[in-house]
């Protein structure tokens, strides 16, 4: 897709999220800006505590934002918004959670878990609801009769499918997948990744994919943003990021990916990121587009170095 054809679906500008009050205030997200285009898979990668999940949750209005703008399809959706818009957001944006063991209500049947969101939409008859549940379950590769079972009767992979069905039933346009495969076995991971890719093709969904594992990201994401301590440090097309990682933190993440190849693994040098390698005391870092579509955080001195690396 050429860049002028891309349509921005979600625009995040200088997003800030803080927790706690006054003395104990903690800024988890310190001003993050990015665009997500319609139909793409945008990856957000970082270590635990970097604020990647917080961004996802702020977009979907679980956490209030402390500053900045979240604009979805031309409308601002953070801060105080009208009731109608809130309902629209709830329907169009959905989330898939990390741990399928913890994110399903143990005491509710699958039927209720999957269709809970529909109860808020007036004018849906019980008959229609049941049909929708059966369809959503079929879409994720589960049998319709599973609707009358409880979550504990399912394996991890099946539970994650229930979590996906629950998001799909609202017919969303935008799905935030928060580490949807981290808690799963490798063989099940492949199934869930394939399912997500298939659904995206069929329904032209847009994904925000949050993970700490770059190896999965490369496989599924079109563009990747790397986040560290609440700040984006690098953003680029997946292949570009893997071919020319510039920021030391990105390089550290890449070097940590385990390769299924004993000989390469043994030769590998693990890069460890030490934030003190930046000297930002005088020269403040800026978020710069260093080559088309490739953004990086760095001060003037570092940017010159990065440009030279790109040329080499």
């Amino acid at each position, binding site marked *: 897709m050429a860049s002028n054809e891309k349509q921005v679906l979600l625009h995040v500008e200088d997003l800030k999220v803080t927790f706690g009050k006054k003395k104990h205030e903690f800024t988890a997200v310190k001003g993050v800006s990015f665009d997500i285009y319609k139909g793409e898979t945008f990856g957000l990668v970082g270590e*635990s505590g970097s604020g990647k999940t917080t961004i996802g949750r702020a977009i979907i209005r679980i956490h209030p934002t402390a500053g900045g703008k979240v604009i979805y399809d031309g409308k601002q959706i953070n801060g105080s918004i009208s009731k109608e818009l809130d309902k629209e957001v709830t329907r169009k944006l959905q989330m898939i959670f990390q741990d399928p063991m913890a994110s399903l209500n143990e005491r509710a049947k699958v039927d209720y878990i999957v269709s809970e969101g529909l109860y808020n939409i007036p004018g849906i008859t019980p008959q229609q609801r049941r049909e929708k549940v059966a369809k959503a379950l079929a879409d994720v590769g589960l049998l319709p009769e599973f609707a009358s079972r409880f979550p504990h009767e399912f394996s991890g992979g099946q539970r994650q499918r229930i979590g996906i069905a629950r998001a799909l039933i609202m017919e969303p346009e935008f799905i935030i997948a928060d580490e949807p495969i981290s808690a799963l*076995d*490798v063989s099940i991971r492949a*199934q869930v990744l394939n399912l997500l890719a298939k659904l995206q093709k069929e329904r032209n969904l847009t994904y925000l994919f949050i993970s*700490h594992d770059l190896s999965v990201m490369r496989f599924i994401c079109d563009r990747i943003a790397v986040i560290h301590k609440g700040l984006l440090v690098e953003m680029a097309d997946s292949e570009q990021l893997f071919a020319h990682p510039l920021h030391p933190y990105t390089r550290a993440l890449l070097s940590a990916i*385990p390769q*299924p190849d*004993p*000989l390469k*693994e043994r030769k590998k040098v693990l890069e460890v990121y030490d934030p003190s390698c930046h000297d930002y005391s005088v020269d403040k870092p800026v978020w710069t587009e260093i080559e088309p579509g490739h953004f990086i955080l760095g001060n003037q001195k570092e940017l010159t170095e990065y440009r030279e690396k790109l040329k080499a």
Partner: protein
Amino acid sequence: MQEKILSIENLSVRFSLRGRILHAIRQVSLDVYKGETLVIVGESGCGKSVLNKNLIGLLDSNGFIDNGSIKYYGAKPDAKNPDLYGEDEKGTYADLAKFKKEKDWLKIRGQEICMILQDPMTSLNPLKTIGAQIAEAISLHQGKKGKEAKEAALQIMRDVRIDDPERRYKQYPHEFSGGMRQRVVIAIAIACNPKILICDEPTTALDVTIQAQVLSLIRELKEKYKLTVIFITHDLGVVANIADRVAVMYAGDIIEIGMVEEIFYQPKHPYTWALLSSLPQLGVKGEDLFSIKGTPPNLFAEVKGDAFAPRNPQALKIDFEELPPYFTVSPTHKARTWLLDERAPKVEPPEVIRSLNSEGGAANGK
């Protein structure tokens, strides 16, 4: 040949569950050599954890060993319980399959064989300081008391790369991050001074960057303390770095075992192929990732033939009828698949495996 430290022979473990019998470990034989890192890989439910729980006497109370022996060469015989010990051409051994009493296990658990569990969040006592927990293991197993124990604990904390050990010594588990907690758990295990260290998915709950650090830490400690490591995981991707040998488990049986290069570059069993090709690292973007269809077999029922056959699209007729024996590929590599029989048709491994093979095999000089 290397010196054997542990030899599992025809081990069979069953669980009685609501009046039914589940056959979790089906006649497994496995040798562990001194100083090696053996990785056991398989899906959840394949019995890899159950197998290892047998080694330190933590089998759930409804499970029992109904056949086989676990010979551990390295324990001093106990005159009071001569029937627990035996002797063969390799020397005296303790038969862990016969251990029943908690008192007997105390001689093995910790000081001989030690285990690191998956989740560092739940394996530490939240009410005691980190230092006290490490020192406790030291005083129990090395007989050091007071200041001496503290010194030893601090030394071990330095060994597992916990910065500023003096300050960290007095802190509680909740003040540590996940990766740091896993280091503490490793420190406690090392403090017992074991000969065999079992790591049960020690990095699953950790970030990729921390995972890489913990793996290299385990490798380092193995050299320093001359440990034998048994490493359990479901992710073949992580083991290339640390493994000497890899055993692939499926439905309570070891279906392929070999040196790490053999498993990655010349895998023979279709299940090993499937595990390797489902790794996202090897996936091609825009194409479906290979995924294993179906579910593992129900172990309540007796498994007939090759347990993986129902999920293997290229299964042969005999796979459903008769259990394949181990075919020897090289002195260190054997696999339980009829494909290696001389009468079998030629089935090519999937493309990803072949490309891995040509890259690695060439570098390997094969």
